[in-house]
């Protein structure tokens, strides 16, 4: 497992960071009180947003850990990174609407870009798994 970590440091960081970010949001304190989250709070409660991040980040980390030993892991990685890209972009959009100069716009956008970078590697692995399955048929 360890020799794959060097290639996927950003993806590992994204998965673990997302899972712990979910724990932070789901914790007892209020962290999504800002007006930037007005629309997002109509979609999910703060706790459910936290759970979504925990599940997404957790599944992503498990898939990275199992890696090539199971055929489905690149598909989970693609789904998790796509969800990350969409959700972090939504978070950035809320702050953009409130104050485009907010540091949160940059931070959440960066997280979305990190997810987009990881999608590239995950989709390539999906193609490789597909190719191996087709050749082995």
């Amino acid at each position, binding site marked *: 497992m360890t020799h794959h970590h060097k290639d996927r440091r950003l993806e590992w960081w994204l998965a673990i960071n997302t899972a712990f970010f979910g724990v932070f949001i789901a914790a007892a304190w209020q962290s999504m009180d800002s007006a930037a989250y007005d*629309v997002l709070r*109509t979609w999910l409660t703060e706790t459910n947003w936290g759970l979504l991040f925990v599940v997404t980040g957790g599944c992503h980390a498990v898939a990275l850990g199992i890696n090539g030993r199971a055929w489905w892991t690149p598909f989970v990685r*693609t789904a998790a990174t*796509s969800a990350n*890209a*969409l959700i972090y*972009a*939504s978070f950035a*959009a*809320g702050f*953009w*609407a409130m104050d485009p100069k907010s540091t949160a716009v940059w931070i959440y956008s960066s997280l*979305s870009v990190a997810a*987009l970078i990881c*999608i*590239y*590697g*995950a*989709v*390539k*692995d999906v*193609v*490789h798994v597909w*190719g*191996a399955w087709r*050749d082995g048929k």
Partner: protein
Amino acid sequence: VTANDYGYILLSVSALITAIGGLAVFKARSEPTPRKPDDTLHRIEGNQQRMESKLDIILDRTHR
């Protein structure tokens, strides 16, 4: 930001994901599919060791 604006943002990011995914597919197709490590040599060595140990037993019995 209204819910509609979020819809446009999500659509734009989805388009980006599709474009990046398409690029990754194009790139991956031009690369060889990674193969499983060939364990033929390992299997031959295992068989050889088993045969040698059986031969030792037979030779031992023959000497007796």
